[in-house]
């Protein structure tokens, strides 16, 4: 809205002085450049905020939950991905995700970032440099494989984890990102997808893929030695607490940044994000308090993350009070999955990457189909320029089918892709550390260091 408004103010002045057309053009140029400056400032900030979610956010959140002999190894998994994914993204990842290509995968037009420079890409982000968009998307590609690390914590070889993550990025993440956000992607609601699916900031692309892959990893790798017979208490909820707070803050870049502009839509996504985190926190705490008699800090921060996950696909489509409902539902459902269902199923998803991201992401994807409304997001218009109805609340119940289909595709791709990649890693280097190394801890056995040398 802002450019037209600004132009409206400028035009009468320009016309009254008998301006030449080139003067008007110069004004238009100035307005465009002002908008670009505003949008670019917000998008670069958002990119930095999303990186903050991985390191230190997720690194602290996860490493506090493991035993102290694995604290560094767990941090290292997040940190090495900040470097590894960056290089892969520059080489080929960005192109596979955002090149036009087929409905399923991008082509190689942006190989080695060819042509990704300061000129905007009109399809993805018309007001910011293409490079800003590329680096913003990179931060999503970094955190997604890092989320999976919660499932195989305390028992995966570092070498296997590096190979796994590199392959997973190319085989699972890039195709899914292309389908949902790439031009011509199968599920892209705004750029010509055949099966339009609403995913504002990565409910399917980030959370379902990582969460479901996490479940596959936990099942494939088996339980940690001593699971259920030895105590495996979190070694520092203080670290986890700080990590979770950083995640909450960073998530504003994740969701509000997904408006790809410093716009009112970004504000709306910001508000929805915050509201959902708040009610999910309260929801998890309430059910825990009722069930165990005590509201725990770990419960509060887990609830917040669950709410942030669930609101991710919905954040740019729903009204604040619907965000409150989505958060509440996520806080309660994820508690039930993590605290009640997991123990019955018996798999060792060590840090609950599936219970929070897989379950919260799927819930969010479905509820986006319920609550998405063109009162918040009028990006889809019919031929006459009238905004199209989005979700069930707009009277478009059929969208639920698309949301389910989009989620199912994400589940399927994650299951098949992860199984194949795990098998490859197992053949190449073996995915699991030896029993001896596991007992000693990954810090010493994989990295030759210890996190806490308090007597040093």
């Amino acid at each position: 809205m802002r450019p037209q408004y600004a132009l409206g103010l400028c035009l009468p002045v320009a016309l009254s002085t008998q301006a030449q057309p080139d003067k008007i053009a110069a004004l238009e140029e100035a307005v465009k450049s002002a908008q670009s400056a505003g949008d670019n400032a917000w998008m670069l900030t958002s990119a930095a905020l999303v990186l903050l979610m991985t390191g230190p956010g997720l690194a602290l959140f996860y490493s506090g939950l493991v035993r102290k002999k694995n604290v560094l190894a767990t941090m290292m998994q997040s940190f090495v991905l900040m470097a590894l994914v960056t290089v892969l993204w520059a080489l080929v990842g960005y192109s596979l995700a955002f090149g036009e290509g087929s409905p399923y995968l991008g082509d190689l037009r942006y190989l080695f970032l060819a042509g990704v420079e300061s000129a905007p890409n009109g399809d993805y982000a018309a007001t910011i440099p293409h490079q800003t968009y590329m680096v913003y998307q990179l931060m999503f590609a970094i955190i997604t494989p890092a989320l999976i690390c919660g499932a195989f914590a305390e028992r995966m070889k570092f070498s296997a984890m590096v190979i796994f993550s590199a392959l997973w990025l190319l085989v699972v993440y890039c195709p899914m990102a292309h389908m949902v956000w790439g031009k011509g992607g199968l599920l892209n609601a705004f750029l010509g997808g055949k099966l339009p699916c609403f995913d504002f900031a990565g409910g399917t692309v980030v959370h379902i893929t990582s969460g479901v892959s996490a479940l596959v990893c936990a099942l494939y790798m088996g339980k940690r030695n001593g699971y259920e017979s030895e105590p495996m208490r979190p070694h520092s909820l203080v670290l986890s607490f700080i990590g979770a707070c950083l995640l909450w803050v960073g998530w504003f870049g994740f969701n509000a940044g997904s408006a790809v502009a410093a716009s009112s839509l970004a504000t709306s996504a910001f508000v929805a994000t915050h509201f959902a985190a708040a009610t999910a926190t309260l929801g998890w705490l309430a059910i825990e308090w009722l069930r165990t008699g005590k509201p725990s800090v770990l419960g509060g921060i887990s609830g917040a993350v669950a709410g942030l996950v669930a609101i991710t696909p919905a954040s740019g489509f729903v009204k604040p009070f619907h965000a409150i409902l989505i958060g509440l539902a996520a806080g309660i459902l994820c508690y039930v999955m993590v605290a009640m269902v997991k123990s019955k199923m018996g798999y060792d998803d060590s840090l609950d990457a599936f219970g929070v991201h897989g379950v919260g992401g799927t819930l969010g994807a479905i509820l986006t189909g319920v609550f998405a409304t063109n009162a918040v997001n009028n990006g889809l218009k019919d031929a006459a320029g009238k905004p199209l109805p989005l979700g069930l609340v707009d009277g478009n119940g059929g969208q639920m089918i698309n949301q389910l289909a989009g989620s199912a595709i994400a589940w399927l791709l994650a299951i098949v892709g992860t199984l194949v990649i795990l098998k490859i890693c197992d053949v190449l280097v073996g995915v699991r550390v030896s029993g001896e190394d596991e007992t000693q801890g990954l810090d010493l056995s994989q990295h030759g260091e210890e996190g806490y040398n308090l007597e040093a």
Partner: protein
Amino acid sequence: MKKIEAIIQPFKLEEVKEAMKSIGVDGMTVTEVRGHGRQKGHKEVYRGREYQVDLLPKVKLELVVADGRVGEVIKALSGAARTGKIGDGKIFVSDVMEAIRIRNDDRGETAL
């Protein structure tokens, strides 16, 4: 000479130190330990998973005193460490054959 080993609640350490100082016991060695007697541990719950924590943090004091002072020291020590609740700890007394001051080779009670 007798060695007095006392395992006490960590939060009682300051009071016990004060009590020892007030009766003129100058030296002690303190170790942070974990253990349990008849006191039950406690339950911790993390994301619905319960852990029974049996070994609780305690503080162990070791002092060596002249034979004639044992009764007085134990009275002051147990008085300062007592809350009256389960978990207050225990005191063990044993004989000590020799004491040697490393600095100057003093022996016996003069080394204490």
